[in-house]
């Protein structure tokens, strides 16, 4: 146990950020990770924490629309920025995001632990590249580990979502 006399005291910072469209102001320890801020301070437990060192991709969220590892960012760093988590993709089970629907239809998840991170990674990917090839999808997925599926159904789901978006008046799979 650390000597209480010589350890650093906790320093707090007040962070104001927009999470899933709602402004949030919280006073937190300066060392608090964004992933822990989302899960413990805001109760948004859809963001999963796997490796806690940026390798597995389970904690991926969107920061101003760009996928980031929330375990590699401090809550203090998102001051004034906009964070999107998996909770924002669909209003409810009856009304899934097109990519979630494609995952459902393609059996693209088993235990589901990696799914939120993969969804956010690929939502951003499809926005940039609405008509990807299978290789491009596999490359986009390379930063997210899945230990159940073997990835094939995930790749299928992404291609299905892209195809559905293309047939629907040439639209794209955009984040809501």
């Amino acid at each position, binding site marked *: 146990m650390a*000597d*209480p*006399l*010589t350890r*650093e*005291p*906790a*320093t707090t*910072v*007040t962070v104001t950020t927009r999470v899933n469209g709602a402004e949030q102001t919280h006073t937190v320890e300066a060392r608090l990770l964004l992933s822990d801020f989302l899960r413990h301070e805001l109760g948004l437990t859809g963001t999963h924490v796997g490796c806690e060192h940026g390798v597995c991709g389970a904690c991926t969220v969107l920061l101003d629309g760009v996928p980031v590892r929330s375990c590699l960012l401090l809550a203090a760093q998102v001051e004034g920025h906009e964070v999107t988590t998996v909770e924002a993709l669909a209003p409810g089970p009856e009304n899934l995001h097109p990519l979630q629907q494609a995952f459902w239809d393609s059996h693209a998840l088993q235990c589901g632990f990696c799914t939120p991170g993969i969804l956010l990674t690929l939502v951003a990917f499809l926005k940039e590249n609405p008509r990807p090839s299978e290789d491009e999808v596999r490359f986009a997925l390379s930063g997210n580990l899945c230990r159940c599926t073997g990835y094939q159904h995930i790749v299928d789901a992404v291609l299905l979502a892209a195809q559905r978006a293309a047939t629907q008046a040439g639209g794209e799979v955009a984040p809501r």
Partner: protein
Amino acid sequence: MSALLAASAPSDLTRPGALEALRRRFDDRESEVLAFLPEEGRWERLAAEVSALADAAASRPSARAPLLGLPLGIKDIFRVDGFPTSAGSSLPPEVLAGPQSVAVTRLREAGALVAGKTVTTEFAYFAPGPTRNPVAPGRTPGGSSSGSAAAVGAGLVPAAIGSQTIGSICRPAAFCGVVGFKPTYERVPRDGVIPLSPSLDHVGWLTADVDLALRLAAVLCDGWRSPVAVPARPVLGVPEGPYLERASEGGLVAFAVACTRLKAAGFEVRSTPAMEDFAAIDTRHRLLVAADAWQVHREWFARFGDRYHTETRGLLERGRAADPVAVAKARAGRGELRDDLEARMDAAGIDLWLSPAAQGPPPQGLGATGDPVMNLPWTHAGMPAVSLPAGRDADGLPHGVQLVARTGCDEELLAWAGSLAEALHQ
């Protein structure tokens, strides 16, 4: 004399007539001492709380609360449900609001009653409030727990909660002729206390006598051990060297008298060299206070900087400019000081360090709260310290001595403090 006066504060408001007696003491003394923050409807609130407490106690007579009906002063850096917290500052109270402090919750659950909030210097630093010394009204009561010490010294309440970051309990205790106890660092949680320096802030209390300090310790401290077996008379060590030389001439005379009394009562007092580098310890402590205070206050200071008193502002400016490497060294130095002091206790065969609780008697005037330097190293080392009244000098001014035990030996310290306090009164 002051201890007798203080002892006359009612200690259980659920007894018949006790609340009226408390009110009379306030009527007699508070307008002169100004120990408490004003509160509208104080007596109606207390009457309702006393009656609720008495009903609860009557319905469960077997489970008597350990502090049943004890009226307390609470330093205004502690959050107390039902009271605003201003920490002696001009910041809007809503900025400082939050859940009740753990210490106050423990006290209330033990049956204690909050008589009111007591005056603190601004953010428990040095900018003084209006409180006067109850023994010598033209002089400072000390600080930063000014109101808590004065409230007990004036016999308004038998006990009050304070805090010590440099010398904010032991020094005002000496100045007001009461007992002050600062437990081991983090023996009492600081949650719900507006911090000055989280590394150095200690929750502690001022009481009319040692017995009451002990009763509060059993409620407030984590894992209090009771009873403890101690030798009848501890061996006392006087830390000779540059530290002791910081006491004033009058302070050293009073200290010599106290040592003589203790020896006459059969205590062994050994001169033991210590803290040869006291100037460096002093510098490191003050640097750490400043650096911590800046971390605590920088957001408030950015918004309300113009509302801070000059002295506090100076502290924060020093903290802002502090060199992080020097701060890290200062932090590490704390453990080294504690280890060195305890090793010297072992080598010299002493149980407690004995030193003056303040440089001398309370200084004249209310514009400053006196120098905490005699308390500083013990706070720095996080060791438990008790300040005991050591009588009055030829001018009738109060003095105190300070006894310090090894880290975590709070129980032994208070077990010994009773007989030491008695010996000091001979």
